[in-house]
């Protein structure tokens, strides 16, 4: 009996020692790891960044806004028709002409709210607007898309084609737009955007033309390297007048291009049939067709200037 007891005791002691050794071993190997795991609670639902590299694609504005106290300076250019009756060798495939030039400034009032101003060559259009990134896509998909609202006013200050526009109130147009974008992967981002355009007087001023137009645009970017991507941009105005008009004939804007980021600059080099750069012009009045060679080379240069005061470096 005593023998049995002591054997049991020894066995117990031994197993306890073994247990200790084992625990100690696993302790040194994993307790630091498990503690670190415990401390590093994964941050859930962070906003997705860099859905697009810039505030513009080809025709469309993206959901991106410039951040607080940053100024985005935009130069957008469209050359003349590459083919068709206005293109060809005599205009160096459109390079002699500029169908539109846009100079724009976008300033971040706060991180998600921009005030935008720009001027187009096309109809000497001036525009002023606000852009608000109201919802951010989240990494855990608790919010699957980013949503940005855009509202702007367009004004054509000089003489335009008809005398109707002599009356100043007739030269105003308004645009309300919502942009829904999703970054599907590191490479692929897509967006759709319903737009409502209000013209005080139909533009172009032709009998039967609508004052108000609803349009839908779809655009996307597919990166093929860290800093370069393919961009596709399409806009469809829902306008029976535009569908039925024979002279002039209207077309939907379609652009395809390459986007290149170099640090502070984002460049887009593109081809599009739309002559104009601003929504006020290309939704209303795209009269050139890819099929007839009436597409053009274009580029967008976007440069960010930062006016944030630097904090003092601790080095």
């Amino acid at each position: 009996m005593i023998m049995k007891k002591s054997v049991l005791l020894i066995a117990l002691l031994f197993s306890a020692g073994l247990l200790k050794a084992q625990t100690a071993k696993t302790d040194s190997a994993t307790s630091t790891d498990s503690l670190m795991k415990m401390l590093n609670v994964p941050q859930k639902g962070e906003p997705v960044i860099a859905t697009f590299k810039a505030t513009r694609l080809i025709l469309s504005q993206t959901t991106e806004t410039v951040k607080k106290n940053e100024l985005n300076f935009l130069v957008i250019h469209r050359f003349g028709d590459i083919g068709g009756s206005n293109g060809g060798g005599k205009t160096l495939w459109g390079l002699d002409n500029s169908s539109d030039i846009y100079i724009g400034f976008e300033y971040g009032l706060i991180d998600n709210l921009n005030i935008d101003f720009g001027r187009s060559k096309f109809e000497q259009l001036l525009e002023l607007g606000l852009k608000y990134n109201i919802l951010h896509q989240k990494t855990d998909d608790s919010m699957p898309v980013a949503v940005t609202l855009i509202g702007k006013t367009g004004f054509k200050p000089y003489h335009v084609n008809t005398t109707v526009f002599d009356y100043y109130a007739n030269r105003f147009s308004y645009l309300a737009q919502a942009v829904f974008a999703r970054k599907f992967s590191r490479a692929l981002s897509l967006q759709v955007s319903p737009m409502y355009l209000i013209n005080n007087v139909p533009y172009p001023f032709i009998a039967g033309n609508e004052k108000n137009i609803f349009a839908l645009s779809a655009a996307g970017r597919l990166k093929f390297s860290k800093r370069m991507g393919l961009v596709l941009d399409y806009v469809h105005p829902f306008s029976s007048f535009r569908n039925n008009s024979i002279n002039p004939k209207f077309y939907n804007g379609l652009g395809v291009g390459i986007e290149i980021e170099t640090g502070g600059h984002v460049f887009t080099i593109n081809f599009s049939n739309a002559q104009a750069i601003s929504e006020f012009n290309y939704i209303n009045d795209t009269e050139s067709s890819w099929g007839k060679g009436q597409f053009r080379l274009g580029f967008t240069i976007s440069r960010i200037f930062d006016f944030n005061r630097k904090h003092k470096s601790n080095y």
Partner: protein
Amino acid sequence: MKYIAVILLAWFTVNQAGKGIYVCKNAAVSLYSKAPIEDIDARSDIGTSVLNIANGDVAFSVPIRSFKFDKALMQEHFNENYLESDKYPQASFKGKLTEKPDLTRNGTYPVTATGVFEVHGVKQNRSITGKLMVANGAISLTSEFMVACKDHRIEIPTLVFQNIAENIKIKVTAAYIPYK
């Protein structure tokens, strides 16, 4: 009775392993590099660390997304183009202290930790020096070391080369609390 005593004894000795562990949930990690056009300077205050005095284990981790830059665009490029924080969300170090300073006495002790340093998904064996400070029972650790971008496959494209230094200085400060 004897059994219980033995079991208790064994249990106590097992539990002894839990002593001497310190943790930090708000370690400051900053990175700095001087370049001809613009300096890069960012900081995170939510680094985590574990220090085990008993066996010399030391571990650090910091979420890449938590680094704050003065320039929002620089922060975006840091995450999107250089560190690819969606693929590699953490930078970490896990190693062992070579020295075993006596932490019951106040003072500053130079220490060296040897282990694995991981940034951008690339693991490097590193020996990193630092200082362990004890002031009336409060333990803190600071360290400054360099990280070469090319060691961690952080590509600097030729177009923006002059903007970015090839070596980044990292500074880490952790104030520990005992883990219970």
